Protein backbone atom coordinates (compact mmCIF):
# COMPACT_ATOMS: atom_id res chain seq x y z
CA UNK A 1 0.00 0.00 0.00
CA UNK A 2 1.39 3.34 -0.97
CA UNK A 3 0.86 6.67 0.71
CA UNK A 4 -2.68 8.04 0.45
CA UNK A 5 -2.28 11.82 0.42
CA UNK A 6 -5.75 13.15 1.11
CA UNK A 7 -5.20 15.52 4.04
CA UNK A 8 -1.75 16.23 2.59
CA UNK A 9 -3.28 16.57 -0.88
CA UNK A 10 -2.70 20.30 -1.34
CA UNK A 11 0.70 20.44 0.36
CA UNK A 12 3.32 21.47 -2.14
CA UNK A 13 0.60 21.88 -4.78
CA UNK A 14 -1.18 25.12 -3.86
CA UNK A 15 0.36 28.43 -2.83
CA UNK A 16 -0.37 28.82 0.91
CA UNK A 17 -0.18 32.61 0.47
CA UNK A 18 -2.79 32.74 -2.28
CA UNK A 19 -6.40 31.65 -1.81
CA UNK A 20 -6.98 31.69 -5.60
CA UNK A 21 -4.79 28.59 -5.97
CA UNK A 22 -6.94 26.84 -3.38
CA UNK A 23 -10.18 27.92 -5.03
CA UNK A 24 -8.85 26.68 -8.38
CA UNK A 25 -8.52 23.20 -6.84
CA UNK A 26 -12.15 23.17 -5.69
CA UNK A 27 -11.50 24.89 -2.40
CA UNK A 28 -14.47 26.05 -0.29
CA UNK A 29 -16.91 23.94 -2.37
CA UNK A 30 -17.57 21.83 0.72
CA UNK A 31 -18.23 24.93 2.82
CA UNK A 32 -20.67 26.35 0.24
CA UNK A 33 -22.44 22.97 0.09
CA UNK A 34 -22.64 22.83 3.90
CA UNK A 35 -23.81 26.43 4.14
CA UNK A 36 -26.39 26.42 1.32
CA UNK A 37 -27.50 22.81 0.90
CA UNK A 38 -27.23 21.25 4.37
CA UNK A 39 -28.77 21.86 7.76
CA UNK A 40 -26.44 22.06 10.79
CA UNK A 41 -27.87 18.79 12.15
CA UNK A 42 -27.23 17.21 8.74
CA UNK A 43 -23.57 18.24 8.86
CA UNK A 44 -23.25 16.69 12.32
CA UNK A 45 -24.90 13.48 11.08
CA UNK A 46 -22.53 13.23 8.11
CA UNK A 47 -19.46 13.58 10.36
CA UNK A 48 -20.93 11.05 12.80
CA UNK A 49 -21.59 8.55 9.98
CA UNK A 50 -18.06 9.00 8.63
CA UNK A 51 -16.58 7.71 11.87
CA UNK A 52 -14.02 10.54 12.01
CA UNK A 53 -12.10 10.42 15.29
CA UNK A 54 -9.80 13.02 16.82
CA UNK A 55 -6.38 13.17 15.22
CA UNK A 56 -4.56 14.91 18.10
CA UNK A 57 -4.05 11.77 20.17
CA UNK A 58 -7.20 11.16 22.19
CA UNK A 59 -9.20 9.77 19.26
CA UNK A 60 -12.65 10.80 20.47
CA UNK A 61 -15.49 10.43 17.91
CA UNK A 62 -15.72 13.87 16.31
CA UNK A 63 -19.39 13.75 15.27
CA UNK A 64 -20.48 12.76 18.75
CA UNK A 65 -18.56 15.69 20.24
CA UNK A 66 -20.12 18.12 17.76
CA UNK A 67 -23.58 16.71 18.51
CA UNK A 68 -23.12 17.37 22.23
CA UNK A 69 -22.25 21.00 21.50
CA UNK A 70 -25.07 21.31 18.94
CA UNK A 71 -27.59 20.08 21.51
CA UNK A 72 -26.45 22.42 24.29
CA UNK A 73 -28.74 25.43 24.15
CA UNK A 74 -26.67 28.60 24.31
CA UNK A 75 -26.42 31.93 22.52
CA UNK A 76 -22.64 31.90 22.54
CA UNK A 77 -20.56 28.91 21.44
CA UNK A 78 -16.88 28.61 20.66
CA UNK A 79 -14.79 26.59 18.25
CA UNK A 80 -11.10 26.11 18.92
CA UNK A 81 -8.53 24.61 16.57
CA UNK A 82 -5.81 23.02 18.66
CA UNK A 83 -2.56 23.92 16.89
CA UNK A 84 -0.49 23.61 20.05
CA UNK A 85 1.37 20.60 18.61
CA UNK A 86 3.88 19.98 21.39
CA UNK A 87 3.99 16.19 21.44
CA UNK A 88 7.48 14.75 21.14
CA UNK A 89 8.05 13.45 17.63
CA UNK A 90 5.12 15.38 16.18
CA UNK A 91 5.46 17.96 13.40
CA UNK A 92 2.55 17.22 11.03
CA UNK A 93 0.47 20.24 12.04
CA UNK A 94 3.41 22.57 11.41
CA UNK A 95 3.75 21.02 7.95
CA UNK A 96 0.00 21.27 7.27
CA UNK A 97 -0.31 24.87 8.49
CA UNK A 98 2.70 26.00 6.49
CA UNK A 99 1.56 24.42 3.24
CA UNK A 100 -2.27 24.49 3.33
CA UNK A 101 -3.91 26.85 5.82
CA UNK A 102 -7.03 27.07 3.62
CA UNK A 103 -8.29 23.52 4.13
CA UNK A 104 -8.09 24.13 7.87
CA UNK A 105 -10.09 27.35 7.55
CA UNK A 106 -12.69 25.60 5.42
CA UNK A 107 -12.95 22.77 7.96
CA UNK A 108 -13.40 25.32 10.76
CA UNK A 109 -16.12 27.16 8.85
CA UNK A 110 -18.07 23.92 8.40
CA UNK A 111 -17.57 23.00 12.06
CA UNK A 112 -18.82 26.44 13.04
CA UNK A 113 -22.02 25.90 11.06
CA UNK A 114 -22.50 22.45 12.56
CA UNK A 115 -22.24 23.46 16.20
CA UNK A 116 -23.60 27.00 15.95
CA UNK A 117 -20.44 28.86 16.97
CA UNK A 118 -19.85 32.53 16.19
CA UNK A 119 -16.27 32.86 17.41
CA UNK A 120 -13.34 30.58 16.66
CA UNK A 121 -9.72 30.56 17.79
CA UNK A 122 -6.69 28.87 16.35
CA UNK A 123 -4.44 28.21 19.36
CA UNK A 124 -1.01 28.36 17.72
CA UNK A 125 1.98 27.31 19.80
CA UNK A 126 4.61 30.00 20.40
CA UNK A 127 7.28 27.85 18.80
CA UNK A 128 5.40 28.16 15.48
CA UNK A 129 5.31 31.97 15.60
CA UNK A 130 6.91 32.00 12.15
CA UNK A 131 3.55 30.71 10.77
CA UNK A 132 1.49 33.47 12.42
CA UNK A 133 1.50 36.01 9.56
CA UNK A 134 0.67 33.48 6.87
CA UNK A 135 -2.18 32.08 8.94
CA UNK A 136 -3.65 35.54 9.57
CA UNK A 137 -3.31 36.40 5.90
CA UNK A 138 -5.14 33.22 4.88
CA UNK A 139 -8.00 34.07 7.25
CA UNK A 140 -8.08 37.61 5.85
CA UNK A 141 -8.27 36.31 2.27
CA UNK A 142 -11.12 33.95 3.20
CA UNK A 143 -12.90 36.89 4.86
CA UNK A 144 -12.51 39.00 1.70
CA UNK A 145 -14.22 36.24 -0.23
CA UNK A 146 -17.19 36.53 2.12
CA UNK A 147 -16.76 33.16 3.80
CA UNK A 148 -16.48 34.41 7.38
CA UNK A 149 -19.95 35.94 7.73
CA UNK A 150 -21.10 33.44 10.38
CA UNK A 151 -17.79 32.81 12.12
CA UNK A 152 -14.95 35.09 13.20
CA UNK A 153 -11.55 33.37 13.39
CA UNK A 154 -8.74 34.73 15.57
CA UNK A 155 -5.25 33.34 15.98
CA UNK A 156 -4.28 33.06 19.65
CA UNK A 157 -0.62 32.35 20.33
CA UNK A 158 0.58 30.15 23.14
CA UNK A 159 3.67 30.89 25.19
CA UNK A 160 5.57 27.63 25.51
CA UNK A 161 3.70 24.94 27.41
CA UNK A 162 3.14 21.34 26.27
CA UNK A 163 0.19 20.86 28.63
CA UNK A 164 -1.68 23.66 26.85
CA UNK A 165 -2.28 21.12 24.11
CA UNK A 166 -4.63 19.41 26.56
CA UNK A 167 -8.05 20.90 25.87
CA UNK A 168 -8.94 22.13 29.36
CA UNK A 169 -5.49 23.62 29.95
CA UNK A 170 -5.75 25.20 26.50
CA UNK A 171 -8.99 26.91 27.45
CA UNK A 172 -7.45 28.18 30.68
CA UNK A 173 -4.58 29.57 28.65
CA UNK A 174 -6.91 31.50 26.31
CA UNK A 175 -8.66 32.83 29.42
CA UNK A 176 -5.33 34.31 30.55
CA UNK A 177 -4.56 31.78 33.26
CA UNK A 178 -1.88 29.25 34.08
CA UNK A 179 -2.35 26.30 31.75
CA UNK A 180 -3.67 23.93 34.40
CA UNK A 181 -6.12 21.14 33.62
CA UNK A 182 -9.70 21.38 34.79
CA UNK A 183 -11.82 18.90 36.69
CA UNK A 184 -14.14 17.06 34.31
CA UNK A 185 -17.17 16.99 34.12
CA UNK A 186 -18.23 19.44 32.84
CA UNK A 187 -16.76 18.66 29.43
CA UNK A 188 -16.16 21.46 26.90
CA UNK A 189 -19.21 20.79 24.68
CA UNK A 190 -21.38 21.51 27.71
CA UNK A 191 -19.25 24.14 29.46
CA UNK A 192 -15.84 25.14 28.17
CA UNK A 193 -14.25 28.46 27.25
CA UNK A 194 -15.66 31.10 29.63
CA UNK A 195 -18.20 28.42 30.62
CA UNK A 196 -19.73 28.39 27.13
CA UNK A 197 -20.22 25.26 24.95
CA UNK A 198 -16.92 24.75 23.19
CA UNK A 199 -15.55 22.35 20.60
CA UNK A 200 -11.80 21.81 20.47
CA UNK A 201 -10.46 19.88 17.48
CA UNK A 202 -6.95 19.13 16.24
CA UNK A 203 -5.71 20.70 12.98
CA UNK A 204 -5.73 17.37 11.14
CA UNK A 205 -9.21 16.45 12.40
CA UNK A 206 -10.64 19.69 11.00
CA UNK A 207 -8.76 19.27 7.72
CA UNK A 208 -10.60 15.99 7.13
CA UNK A 209 -13.99 17.72 7.30
CA UNK A 210 -14.12 19.34 3.79
CA UNK A 211 -13.16 15.99 2.21
CA UNK A 212 -15.95 14.19 4.06
CA UNK A 213 -18.51 16.82 3.04
CA UNK A 214 -17.35 16.69 -0.59
CA UNK A 215 -17.02 12.92 -0.96
CA UNK A 216 -19.50 11.66 1.61
CA UNK A 217 -19.34 9.74 4.87
CA UNK A 218 -19.42 6.36 3.08
CA UNK A 219 -16.29 7.23 1.09
CA UNK A 220 -14.44 8.05 4.31
CA UNK A 221 -15.62 5.08 6.36
CA UNK A 222 -14.68 2.68 3.56
CA UNK A 223 -11.06 3.40 4.52
CA UNK A 224 -9.44 2.16 7.69
CA UNK A 225 -10.54 -0.32 10.32
CA UNK A 226 -13.69 -0.89 12.40
CA UNK A 227 -12.94 1.87 14.92
CA UNK A 228 -10.40 3.93 13.00
CA UNK A 229 -11.73 5.38 9.77
CA UNK A 230 -10.02 7.35 7.03
CA UNK A 231 -6.33 8.11 6.79
CA UNK A 232 -3.76 9.28 9.36
CA UNK A 233 -0.86 11.65 8.91
CA UNK A 234 2.16 10.07 10.61
CA UNK A 235 5.42 11.73 11.66
CA UNK A 236 8.49 9.50 11.51
CA UNK A 237 11.81 10.39 13.14
CA UNK A 238 14.71 8.77 14.98
CA UNK A 239 16.80 6.00 13.45
CA UNK A 240 15.37 6.14 9.91
CA UNK A 241 16.84 7.11 6.56
CA UNK A 242 13.89 9.28 5.50
CA UNK A 243 12.30 11.08 8.48
CA UNK A 244 9.21 13.12 7.63
CA UNK A 245 5.46 13.29 7.23
CA UNK A 246 3.58 10.36 5.64
CA UNK A 247 -0.16 9.76 5.19
CA UNK A 248 -1.50 6.22 5.20
CA UNK A 249 -4.87 4.54 5.56
CA UNK A 250 -5.70 3.73 9.17
CA UNK A 251 -4.78 0.14 9.95
CA UNK A 252 -1.69 0.15 7.73
CA UNK A 253 1.08 -2.02 9.16
CA UNK A 254 3.88 -0.26 11.05
CA UNK A 255 6.35 -2.09 8.79
CA UNK A 256 5.06 -0.28 5.72
CA UNK A 257 5.50 3.12 7.34
CA UNK A 258 8.81 2.51 9.05
CA UNK A 259 10.65 0.30 6.58
CA UNK A 260 8.76 0.81 3.31
CA UNK A 261 8.44 4.58 3.44
CA UNK A 262 10.90 5.87 6.05
CA UNK A 263 13.69 3.43 5.26
CA UNK A 264 14.48 2.06 8.72
CA UNK A 265 17.04 -0.72 8.63
CA UNK A 266 18.10 -1.73 12.14
CA UNK A 267 15.12 -1.65 14.53
CA UNK A 268 15.22 -2.60 18.21
CA UNK A 269 12.07 -0.82 19.35
CA UNK A 270 9.55 1.79 18.23
CA UNK A 271 7.78 4.44 20.29
CA UNK A 272 4.34 5.27 18.92
CA UNK A 273 2.26 8.23 20.04
CA UNK A 274 4.77 10.60 21.60
CA UNK A 275 6.49 11.02 24.96
CA UNK A 276 3.86 8.93 26.77
CA UNK A 277 3.42 6.59 23.84
CA UNK A 278 3.76 2.83 23.76
CA UNK A 279 7.19 1.33 23.24
CA UNK A 280 7.01 -1.91 21.28
CA UNK A 281 9.76 -4.31 20.21
CA UNK A 282 10.81 -4.91 16.59
CA UNK A 283 9.05 -8.28 16.67
CA UNK A 284 5.73 -6.41 16.52
CA UNK A 285 6.62 -4.61 13.28
CA UNK A 286 3.57 -6.03 11.46
CA UNK A 287 1.13 -4.43 13.91
CA UNK A 288 -1.53 -2.32 12.15
CA UNK A 289 -1.53 1.32 13.25
CA UNK A 290 -4.99 2.22 14.60
CA UNK A 291 -6.83 3.24 17.76
CA UNK A 292 -7.46 -0.45 18.42
CA UNK A 293 -3.73 -1.21 18.58
CA UNK A 294 -1.19 1.64 18.75
CA UNK A 295 -1.71 5.14 17.42
CA UNK A 296 -1.92 8.08 19.77
CA UNK A 297 -0.98 11.21 17.87
CA UNK A 298 0.76 9.25 15.13
CA UNK A 299 4.28 10.27 16.15
CA UNK A 300 6.58 7.33 15.41
CA UNK A 301 10.17 7.27 16.67
CA UNK A 302 12.40 4.39 15.55
CA UNK A 303 15.16 3.08 17.83
CA UNK A 304 18.06 0.97 16.57
CA UNK A 305 20.03 -1.70 18.40
CA UNK A 306 22.54 0.82 19.79
CA UNK A 307 19.82 2.48 21.88
CA UNK A 308 19.35 1.88 25.58
CA UNK A 309 15.69 1.52 26.53
CA UNK A 310 16.13 2.96 30.01
CA UNK A 311 17.81 6.07 28.58
CA UNK A 312 14.84 6.49 26.20
CA UNK A 313 12.24 6.16 28.97
CA UNK A 314 14.30 8.50 31.18
CA UNK A 315 14.33 11.16 28.45
CA UNK A 316 10.55 10.85 27.99
CA UNK A 317 9.89 11.14 31.72
CA UNK A 318 12.20 14.17 32.03
CA UNK A 319 10.03 15.93 29.46
CA UNK A 320 6.73 14.94 31.07
CA UNK A 321 7.95 15.90 34.54
CA UNK A 322 9.08 19.29 33.23
CA UNK A 323 5.79 19.92 31.44
CA UNK A 324 3.43 18.70 34.19
CA UNK A 325 1.17 21.61 35.13
CA UNK A 326 1.66 20.74 38.81
CA UNK A 327 -1.98 20.87 39.81
CA UNK A 328 -2.59 17.26 40.81
CA UNK A 329 -0.39 15.30 43.18
CA UNK A 330 -0.23 11.95 41.32
CA UNK A 331 1.31 13.61 38.26
CA UNK A 332 3.38 16.34 39.92
CA UNK A 333 4.93 14.02 42.48
CA UNK A 334 4.67 10.79 40.49
CA UNK A 335 6.64 12.04 37.50
CA UNK A 336 9.24 13.46 39.90
CA UNK A 337 9.73 10.14 41.71
CA UNK A 338 9.75 8.04 38.52
CA UNK A 339 12.31 10.45 37.06
CA UNK A 340 14.47 10.02 40.14
CA UNK A 341 14.32 6.23 39.93
CA UNK A 342 15.08 6.18 36.19
CA UNK A 343 17.90 8.68 36.72
CA UNK A 344 19.50 6.43 39.31
CA UNK A 345 19.15 3.46 36.94
CA UNK A 346 20.90 5.34 34.14
CA UNK A 347 23.77 6.17 36.53
CA UNK A 348 24.13 2.61 37.82
CA UNK A 349 22.61 3.47 41.22
CA UNK A 350 19.56 1.17 41.05
CA UNK A 351 18.21 -0.69 44.07
CA UNK A 352 16.26 -3.97 44.29
CA UNK A 353 12.88 -2.34 44.96
CA UNK A 354 13.00 -0.05 41.89
CA UNK A 355 10.93 -2.19 39.52
CA UNK A 356 8.04 -2.72 41.94
CA UNK A 357 8.15 0.98 42.85
CA UNK A 358 7.87 1.93 39.17
CA UNK A 359 4.94 -0.43 38.62
CA UNK A 360 3.16 0.78 41.74
CA UNK A 361 3.54 4.46 40.82
CA UNK A 362 2.52 3.82 37.23
CA UNK A 363 -0.74 2.16 38.27
CA UNK A 364 -1.58 4.95 40.72
CA UNK A 365 -0.84 7.72 38.24
CA UNK A 366 -2.94 6.06 35.55
CA UNK A 367 -5.94 5.89 37.89
CA UNK A 368 -5.66 9.13 39.81
CA UNK A 369 -4.21 11.82 37.53
CA UNK A 370 -6.43 14.70 36.48
CA UNK A 371 -5.58 14.61 32.79
CA UNK A 372 -3.95 12.56 30.06
CA UNK A 373 -0.42 13.73 30.84
CA UNK A 374 -0.34 12.09 34.26
CA UNK A 375 -2.56 9.20 33.23
CA UNK A 376 -0.33 8.18 30.33
CA UNK A 377 3.07 9.34 31.65
CA UNK A 378 4.03 5.91 32.89
CA UNK A 379 2.98 4.03 29.73
CA UNK A 380 6.56 3.95 28.36
CA UNK A 381 7.73 2.66 31.76
CA UNK A 382 5.12 -0.11 31.86
CA UNK A 383 5.67 -1.05 28.22
CA UNK A 384 9.43 -1.17 28.55
CA UNK A 385 9.04 -3.31 31.69
CA UNK A 386 6.79 -5.64 29.72
CA UNK A 387 8.97 -5.99 26.61
CA UNK A 388 12.47 -5.14 27.87
CA UNK A 389 12.32 -6.20 31.50
CA UNK A 390 15.75 -7.82 31.38
CA UNK A 391 17.31 -4.39 30.69
CA UNK A 392 15.96 -3.12 34.00
CA UNK A 393 16.98 -6.30 35.84
CA UNK A 394 20.47 -6.15 34.34
CA UNK A 395 20.79 -2.49 35.28
CA UNK A 396 19.80 -3.18 38.88
CA UNK A 397 22.08 -6.23 39.13
CA UNK A 398 24.94 -4.15 37.76
CA UNK A 399 24.16 -1.39 40.27
CA UNK A 400 24.11 -3.83 43.17
CA UNK A 401 27.35 -5.40 42.02
CA UNK A 402 29.01 -2.03 41.48
CA UNK A 403 28.08 -0.81 44.95
CA UNK A 404 29.24 -3.95 46.67
CA UNK A 405 32.43 -3.89 44.61
CA UNK A 406 33.20 -0.26 45.34
CA UNK A 407 32.55 -0.88 49.00
CA UNK A 408 34.63 -4.02 49.11
CA UNK A 409 37.95 -4.38 50.85
CA UNK A 410 39.45 -5.60 47.57
CA UNK A 411 38.61 -2.38 45.79
CA UNK A 412 39.80 -0.26 48.68
CA UNK A 413 43.05 -2.19 48.89
CA UNK A 414 46.13 -1.52 46.79
CA UNK A 415 45.29 -4.49 44.52
CA UNK A 416 41.84 -3.08 43.65
CA UNK A 417 41.42 -2.41 39.92
CA UNK A 418 40.21 1.09 39.19
Amino acid at each position, binding site marked *: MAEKRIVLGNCGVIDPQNIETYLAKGGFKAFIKARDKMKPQGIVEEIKKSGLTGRGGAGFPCGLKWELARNTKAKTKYLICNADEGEVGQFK*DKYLLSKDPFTLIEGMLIAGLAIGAQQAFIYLRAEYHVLYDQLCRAIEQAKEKGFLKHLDIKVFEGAGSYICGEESALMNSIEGRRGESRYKPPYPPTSGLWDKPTIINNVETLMNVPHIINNGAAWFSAMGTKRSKGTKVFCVSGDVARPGVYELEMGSPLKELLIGLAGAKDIKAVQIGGSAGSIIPASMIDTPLAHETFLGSGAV*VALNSSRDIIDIVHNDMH*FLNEESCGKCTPCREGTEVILEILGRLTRGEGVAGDISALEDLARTMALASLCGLGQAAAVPVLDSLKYFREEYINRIDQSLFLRSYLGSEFYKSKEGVR
Partner: protein
Amino acid sequence: MSAAGKETQSSIANRAELLPALKQELGKNGNLSKTVLTSLADKTGLPLNEIYGVATFYAYLPVAAAGKNIIRVCGCLPCDLKDAQGVIGSIKKELGIEPGQTTADARFSLEQVGCIGACDQAPAMMINDTLYGNLTPARIAEILKSFK
Protein backbone atom coordinates in the same frame (compact mmCIF):
# COMPACT_ATOMS: atom_id res chain seq x y z
CA MET B 1 -17.10 25.22 37.28
CA SER B 2 -14.15 27.06 35.82
CA ALA B 3 -12.68 30.05 37.61
CA ALA B 4 -14.38 32.28 35.05
CA GLY B 5 -17.74 31.81 36.80
CA LYS B 6 -16.54 33.67 39.86
CA GLU B 7 -15.32 36.81 38.11
CA THR B 8 -16.97 39.97 36.76
CA GLN B 9 -17.26 40.67 33.04
CA SER B 10 -14.59 43.39 33.08
CA SER B 11 -12.04 41.29 34.93
CA ILE B 12 -12.71 38.43 32.50
CA ALA B 13 -12.02 40.83 29.62
CA ASN B 14 -8.80 42.00 31.29
CA ARG B 15 -7.83 38.41 31.98
CA ALA B 16 -8.39 37.44 28.34
CA GLU B 17 -5.92 40.11 27.28
CA LEU B 18 -3.25 39.03 29.78
CA LEU B 19 -1.26 36.57 27.68
CA PRO B 20 -1.18 38.85 24.60
CA ALA B 21 -0.26 41.77 26.91
CA LEU B 22 2.61 39.81 28.45
CA LYS B 23 3.92 38.93 24.99
CA GLN B 24 3.68 42.57 23.94
CA GLU B 25 5.68 43.67 27.01
CA LEU B 26 8.22 40.96 26.21
CA GLY B 27 8.59 42.41 22.74
CA LYS B 28 9.40 45.82 24.22
CA ASN B 29 11.67 44.61 27.03
CA GLY B 30 13.90 41.55 26.87
CA ASN B 31 12.20 39.95 29.85
CA LEU B 32 9.26 40.41 32.20
CA SER B 33 10.86 42.13 35.18
CA LYS B 34 9.01 42.98 38.41
CA THR B 35 8.70 46.58 37.20
CA VAL B 36 7.02 45.49 33.98
CA LEU B 37 4.67 43.09 35.77
CA THR B 38 3.76 45.71 38.37
CA SER B 39 2.84 48.26 35.71
CA LEU B 40 0.75 45.59 33.99
CA ALA B 41 -1.00 44.93 37.31
CA ASP B 42 -1.78 48.64 37.65
CA LYS B 43 -3.07 48.80 34.07
CA THR B 44 -5.32 45.74 34.21
CA GLY B 45 -6.40 45.83 37.84
CA LEU B 46 -5.34 42.19 38.17
CA PRO B 47 -3.31 41.29 41.31
CA LEU B 48 0.46 41.21 40.79
CA ASN B 49 0.72 37.68 42.16
CA GLU B 50 -1.80 36.44 39.58
CA ILE B 51 0.16 38.04 36.75
CA TYR B 52 3.42 36.64 38.14
CA GLY B 53 1.79 33.21 38.39
CA VAL B 54 0.78 33.30 34.75
CA ALA B 55 4.11 34.69 33.50
CA THR B 56 6.20 32.10 35.31
CA PHE B 57 4.07 29.21 34.01
CA TYR B 58 5.07 29.62 30.39
CA ALA B 59 8.54 28.66 29.09
CA TYR B 60 8.68 31.37 26.45
CA LEU B 61 7.95 34.22 28.88
CA PRO B 62 11.29 34.79 30.60
CA VAL B 63 10.96 36.55 33.93
CA ALA B 64 14.66 36.62 34.74
CA ALA B 65 17.07 38.78 32.75
CA ALA B 66 17.74 37.26 29.36
CA GLY B 67 20.25 37.83 26.58
CA LYS B 68 19.41 39.72 23.41
CA ASN B 69 19.07 36.41 21.54
CA ILE B 70 17.55 33.36 23.22
CA ILE B 71 18.88 30.00 22.06
CA ARG B 72 16.55 27.09 22.76
CA VAL B 73 18.02 23.65 22.09
CA CYS B 74 15.55 20.76 21.97
CA GLY B 75 16.47 17.92 24.33
CA CYS B 76 13.60 15.55 23.55
CA LEU B 77 13.90 12.01 22.23
CA PRO B 78 14.31 12.45 18.43
CA CYS B 79 16.85 15.26 18.96
CA ASP B 80 18.51 13.42 21.84
CA LEU B 81 19.02 10.43 19.51
CA LYS B 82 20.86 12.77 17.14
CA ASP B 83 23.14 14.15 19.86
CA ALA B 84 21.32 17.18 21.27
CA GLN B 85 23.80 17.14 24.13
CA GLY B 86 26.56 17.52 21.54
CA VAL B 87 24.79 20.64 20.25
CA ILE B 88 24.78 22.05 23.78
CA GLY B 89 28.46 21.12 24.03
CA SER B 90 29.24 22.97 20.78
CA ILE B 91 27.41 26.07 22.00
CA LYS B 92 29.35 25.90 25.27
CA LYS B 93 32.56 25.74 23.24
CA GLU B 94 31.57 28.77 21.13
CA LEU B 95 29.96 30.95 23.80
CA GLY B 96 31.15 29.57 27.11
CA ILE B 97 27.63 29.16 28.54
CA GLU B 98 25.53 26.21 29.68
CA PRO B 99 21.72 25.89 29.71
CA GLY B 100 20.28 28.47 32.11
CA GLN B 101 23.12 30.95 31.56
CA THR B 102 23.65 34.19 29.64
CA THR B 103 26.87 35.37 28.00
CA ALA B 104 28.77 38.14 29.75
CA ASP B 105 28.09 40.54 26.87
CA ALA B 106 24.36 39.62 27.10
CA ARG B 107 24.32 38.64 23.45
CA PHE B 108 22.95 35.13 24.06
CA SER B 109 20.99 33.13 26.62
CA LEU B 110 20.85 29.35 26.38
CA GLU B 111 18.03 27.04 27.39
CA GLN B 112 17.26 23.38 26.89
CA VAL B 113 13.60 23.03 25.93
CA GLY B 114 10.97 20.48 24.98
CA CYS B 115 10.04 19.41 21.45
CA ILE B 116 9.98 22.28 18.94
CA GLY B 117 8.48 20.20 16.12
CA ALA B 118 11.63 19.74 14.05
CA CYS B 119 12.11 16.03 14.68
CA ASP B 120 12.77 15.29 11.01
CA GLN B 121 15.67 17.78 11.08
CA ALA B 122 17.14 16.65 14.37
CA PRO B 123 19.16 17.87 16.19
CA ALA B 124 17.51 21.28 16.14
CA MET B 125 17.39 24.58 17.98
CA MET B 126 15.55 27.88 17.86
CA ILE B 127 17.20 31.27 18.17
CA ASN B 128 14.39 33.76 18.87
CA ASP B 129 11.70 32.81 16.32
CA THR B 130 13.93 31.07 13.80
CA LEU B 131 14.40 27.32 13.59
CA TYR B 132 17.78 25.77 12.75
CA GLY B 133 17.83 22.05 12.04
CA ASN B 134 20.31 19.37 10.93
CA LEU B 135 22.91 20.97 13.18
CA THR B 136 26.60 20.14 13.09
CA PRO B 137 29.41 21.79 15.09
CA ALA B 138 30.45 23.74 11.97
CA ARG B 139 26.91 24.90 11.24
CA ILE B 140 26.40 25.96 14.87
CA ALA B 141 29.53 28.11 14.84
CA GLU B 142 28.43 29.70 11.57
CA ILE B 143 24.92 30.42 12.84
CA LEU B 144 26.11 31.98 16.10
CA LYS B 145 28.57 34.23 14.28
CA SER B 146 25.73 35.68 12.21
CA PHE B 147 24.12 37.20 15.32
CA LYS B 148 25.23 40.59 16.60
